[in-house]
């Protein structure tokens, strides 16, 4: 996520140029761009169902950004993304519907509780070798999934749980305004992530990625920073779950299985580690491309299980031949124009 931005420091006279070079206005511009998409569907240039796919991409992009913080900087895999997303969605649904509390209360509890659980899991598993986090989060995800199915009184069991669009600032939202809410949240999360990785904690994480031993020698507490990365990833997934339940208006146990966690991982790997825009593009590739493009193709579109094959092969190909993902390919375009070799992606993951 090192979108190298000279930003505030250059202070040139040209305001427009400064704005363009600074990262935050670009995020806002990006947000505005996605926010205009419903207009196209209003004009009939885009199918209304397409907007649902894009909305889902925005929801999952939040979780993917969290996982990218964890995987990109601490090299740890979490397979609990789906479980924490599900937990966030059910808590939000329960607090807002059954307890009749406000959107903000639902949001706060739905993010806080999974984050605390994540912190606990992290404390247990991060003291050991890194691979245990993947297995421990898989374990927790299984426990959560089973609980979603069994705890009828809270989750609605197999029937699932429904909520209505959020009520915010005294307005009852509809589909378009909920979509706008997703855009705003994603933009904020992107900005937050940018400022985090470029801040003091982000620099410590960078150091950890370079060499854990060197970072330790510089006074970086490995456990503490791994915990920070993992809690952030958990908080992002929970937030993503909250967004999901308000946009889709339903939460079923079958959604929150291991396959979803793998999809999020695919989005991160395909988009490129440590790249904010790459992650969003990766999420689009993983969720929207199979449904919006591949299914329309003549022969290929009829294959059962096509999205899985597409994303699975893409992960493997990216890891083997382009470890920096889409963002790495994008960044190597100028280099190729200058007839130089593209930066060899040997440092891999």
């Amino acid at each position, binding site marked *: 996520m090192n979108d190298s931005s000279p930003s505030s420091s250059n202070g040139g006279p040209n305001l427009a140029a400064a704005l363009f070079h600074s990262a935050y206005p670009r995020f806002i511009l990006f947000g505005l761009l996605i926010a205009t998409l419903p207009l196209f569907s209003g004009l009939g240039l885009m199918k209304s169902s397409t907007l649902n796919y894009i909305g889902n991409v925005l929801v999952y992009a939040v979780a993917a950004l969290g996982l990218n913080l964890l995987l990109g900087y601490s090299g740890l895999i979490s397979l609990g993304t789906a479980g924490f997303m599900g937990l966030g969605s059910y808590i939000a649904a329960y607090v807002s519907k059954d307890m009749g509390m406000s959107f903000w209360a639902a949001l706060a509890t739905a993010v806080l509780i999974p984050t605390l659980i994540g912190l606990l899991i992290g404390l*247990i598993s991060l003291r050991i070798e890194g691979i245990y986090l993947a297995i421990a989060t898989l*374990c927790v995800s299984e426990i959560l999934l089973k609980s979603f199915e069994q705890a009828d009184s809270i989750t609605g069991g197999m029937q699932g749980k429904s909520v209505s669009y959020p009520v915010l600032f005294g307005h009852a939202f509809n589909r378009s305004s909920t979509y706008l809410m997703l855009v705003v949240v994603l933009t904020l999360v992107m900005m937050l992530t940018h400022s985090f990785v470029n801040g003091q904690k982000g620099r410590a994480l960078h150091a950890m990625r370079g060499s854990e031993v060197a970072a330790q020698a510089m006074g970086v507490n490995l456990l503490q920073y791994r915990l920070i990365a993992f809690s952030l990833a958990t908080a992002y997934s929970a937030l993503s779950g909250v967004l999901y339940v308000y946009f889709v208006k339903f939460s079923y146990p079958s959604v929150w299985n291991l396959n979803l966690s793998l999809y999020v991982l695919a989005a991160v790997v395909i988009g490129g580690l440590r790249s904010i825009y790459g992650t969003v593009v990766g999420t689009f590739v993983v969720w929207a491309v199979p449904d919006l493009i591949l299914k329309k193709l003549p022969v290929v579109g009829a294959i059962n299980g096509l999205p899985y094959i597409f994303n699975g092969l893409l992960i493997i190909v990216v890891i083997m031949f382009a470890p920096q993902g889409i963002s790495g390919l994008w960044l190597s375009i100028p280099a190729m124009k200058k007839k130089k070799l593209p930066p060899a992606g040997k440092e891999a993951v």
Partner: protein
Amino acid sequence: MSNELGTVLQLFMRSLETGSVYALAALGIIIIYRTSNIVHFAQGSLGMFNTFVVTYMFTSFRLPLWASVLCGVAAAVGIGFLVDFLIIRRAKRVSSLAKQIITLGLIMVFLGLAPMLFGVDPLSLPRFIQSGDIGLGRASISYNAILNISLGLVLMGILFYVLQKTKMGLAVRTTASNESTARLMGVPTGLVTLAAWALAGVLGCLSGVMIAPTTTVTTSLMDAVQVNALFGCVLGGFQTFYGPVLGAYIIGVGRNFLVYYVSSIWGEQIMYLFILIFLIFRPNGLIGRKFVKKV
């Protein structure tokens, strides 16, 4: 024999049967881990796919069950070769984390291939021995369960014998301990990893064939097996070949007893919680040694 004891005995035998399924899958995972240094998350998915091959041969081509299983084993060997030859071998340069992500990608590929080749309708696979029970006091156990238990034990017995007592086993153990040194010493490490992937595939296929009659053959057939086999590895420690097998049996027994005596709904979750808590006290598993990280 008292009623209570009969129940315990029956539960124990049934646990041994599920334990064998988990243990075979876990053995596949640990063989890959030791030879290729990858935590093999796709062990269950590969097993699921090969079980689909068996079931498809059985239902569509009307082959006898043993011939179908042979086809499945052949498919497992072939796919194992392909995975190692096309992917793992070519990914030598990438980090072990990236290799794990590759196995996660493999899960998705086989999840998609199974419905593409075999259709989306759930299939079913019969047991090897259709009927018949042995009475043990008040408990009874089916011939098929005894076949499964003994098949698991015999297979593992042979494998451990080969690993510990033969030259082939020595090659595997040398590769496991240090791949580049082993290569310098003239051990054909390429052949070893090739064989390891084929073997893991076969073990996964057999565990799939064992578990299939208890449910329907769908893409989620092996999810529970994969998860429990991984936890078996964690419980037993990743440093030995027999630790994960032991861990898998413990999980099989523990799960069934918790489900029967504590709660049929929450038993499995309680088991997983126990494993998490166990990790706090013995982070390297029952038989694990401490990881020593060299700079």
